[in-house]
């Protein structure tokens, strides 16, 4: 663990993190200096700042073919972390745009600062190569999100959702930390890339290793909201401000997957035979629980929450396949899911703001009040349901192909059956949007520019991922290859 010589590659490798830090500081200073009526511009500033960081990172941070460990082995600079960092930055930029005109967040500088801080934590999660860094990154992501979930102080539901999120999050991370401490105890090092070798040499019984793996998995399952640690998701999504719910369900989940993939494949390859069935079972349970509970929902935010639990199940299929194709499929699926779900939550934000309700009945006649918005919802829900030519379709095909390739045919079949169930409730929502009439049909919905831009980006993303998927697929392949 020598400090190692300091050089420019180290700084270039953490360029996105430095940028995010600077942006967070800038936002908080401007929040103090700007007057109340200027503060809405903080949203533009945050979004464009994040976009700028993406461009800078794309130019300067693109990793070399050989992954390198920087900062004394704390971070690993490889394609997997790079691709995930881009996903988080994009998701955060869109969330900033959605937050701009959403009432509880719009004029609050601290909301943007916390958003940037959480994104910083996620970028570190994707590249952490040391247990210390990993734990810090996970907490750095979670703590700002706890505050954001409970952001509306006067509102019962919001504070309650923040508190529930914190309680679940802190408990699962304490269990995970205990797992880390045992891992450190077995190996005597906190470096993730040295752990596997030492664990393999040391004569540890499979039972102990599996027990530690379970402890660690508790923390990760919470982040990706996999069964049986999914209880928090619907409550938290319902209570928190809608743009934040969107962010929680996409970027935060993606960060959880980034960690899950790296950890399972790098630290525990020797117990593969045990955790692959385990992961397959978790994935099946996650899909079934998410989809069946979603069927009964009358609140669109809760429905999307259960649907996002189910989506985590499909992505777990890719991880359970444990092959380059499986990881590729999961990364691609996550990208498609990010733009899709952000678009869906964006629509919920707008409808919620103008009708004051997230109930399904509030969506009646939406196609007449705001045809463009209804179209975005149509694209998003069909993509979630896995209908061509949208991004979700390609993601699902890849995931199921990976499962079949790894001889998990039963899992692929279950996945396909589940997608059919899911399609049912997505179409139910669309039926309300397109076929039901309501009294205020002739009152069009106002859509501010920031939302129009964000949703335009999402729809373009969904269509690109569904039709011209070559480059994105190539990206995911490169990302996956850095794990094998």
């Amino acid at each position, binding site marked *: 663990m020598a400090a190692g010589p300091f050089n420019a590659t180290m700084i270039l490798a953490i360029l996105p993190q430095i940028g995010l830090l600077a942006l967070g500081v800038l936002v908080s200073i401007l929040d103090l200096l700007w007057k109340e009526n200027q503060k809405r511009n903080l949203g533009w500033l945050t979004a464009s700042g994040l976009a700028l960081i993406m461009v800078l990172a794309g130019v300067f941070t693109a990793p070399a073919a050989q992954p390198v460990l920087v900062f004394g082995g704390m971070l690993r600079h490889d394609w997997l972390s790079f691709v995930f960092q881009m996903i988080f930055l994009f998701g955060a930029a869109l969330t900033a745009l959605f937050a701009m005109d959403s009432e509880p967040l719009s004029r609050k500088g601290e909301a943007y600062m916390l958003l940037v801080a959480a994104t910083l934590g996620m970028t570190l999660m994707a590249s952490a190569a040391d247990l210390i860094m990993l734990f810090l990154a996970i907490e750095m992501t979670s703590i700002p999100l706890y505050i954001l979930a409970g952001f509306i102080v006067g509102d019962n539901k919001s504070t309650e959702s923040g508190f529930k999120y914190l309680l679940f999050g802190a408990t699962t991370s*304490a269990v995970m930390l205990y797992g880390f401490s045992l891992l450190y105890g077995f190996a005597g090092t906190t470096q993730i890339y040295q752990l596997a070798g030492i664990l393999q040499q040391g004569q540890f019984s499979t039972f102990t290793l599996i027990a530690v793996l379970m402890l660690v998995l508790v923390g990760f399952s919470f982040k990706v909201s996999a069964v049986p640690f999914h209880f928090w998701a619907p409550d938290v999504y319902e209570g928190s401000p809608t743009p934040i719910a969107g962010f929680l369900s996409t970027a935060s989940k993606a960060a959880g997957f980034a960690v899950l993939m790296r950890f399972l494949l790098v630290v525990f390859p020797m117990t593969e035979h045990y955790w692959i069935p385990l992961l397959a079972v978790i994935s099946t349970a996650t899909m079934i629980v998410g989809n069946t509970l979603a069927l009964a929902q009358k609140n669109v935010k809760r429905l999307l929450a259960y649907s996002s639990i189910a989506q985590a199940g499909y992505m777990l299929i890719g991880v359970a396949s444990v092959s380059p194709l499986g990881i590729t499929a999961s990364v691609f699926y996550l990208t498609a899911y990010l733009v899709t779900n952000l678009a869906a939550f964006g629509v919920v934000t707008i409808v919620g703001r103008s009708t004051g309700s997230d109930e399904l009945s509030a969506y009646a006649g939406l196609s007449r009040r705001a045809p463009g918005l209804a179209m975005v919802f149509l694209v998003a829900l069909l993509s979630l349901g896995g209908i061509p030519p949208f991004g979700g379709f390609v993601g699902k095909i890849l995931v199921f192909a990976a499962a079949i390739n790894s001889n998990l045919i039963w899992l692929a079949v279950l996945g396909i059956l589940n997608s059919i169930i899911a399609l049912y409730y997505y179409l139910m929502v669309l039926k309300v949007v397109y076929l039901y009439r309501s009294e205020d049909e002739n009152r069009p919905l106002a859509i501010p520019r920031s939302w129009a831009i964000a949703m335009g980006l999402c729809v373009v993303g969904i269509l690109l991922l569904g039709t011209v998927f070559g480059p994105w697929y190539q990206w995911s392949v490169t990302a996956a290859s850095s794990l094998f």
Partner: protein
Amino acid sequence: MVPLSYYLMLSAVMFFLGVLGVMLRRNAIIIFMSLELMFNAANLAFVAFALYYHSLSGQIFVFFVMTVAAAEVAVGLALIVAIFRTKHSINVDQLSSLKG
């Protein structure tokens, strides 16, 4: 020297007491104290292993866990105060406005 296994037993006992506290107690403050117990059980294990291996990373880990736990509790207390203002109770069973 106290053998390593003593520390680990104590840490395991602390951890399970913490888990029991989180699951059984209903007062939010006590739940937080139980959470601290869980974090500190892990801390004890880290320090014990660090001593055993003569490696510093375990002790460094404890520094970070301490700060993180402080931040987490600060946020938690803020949320408790916010909840208490509207509900006049910090019993977690009362947190039931979100259901379905």
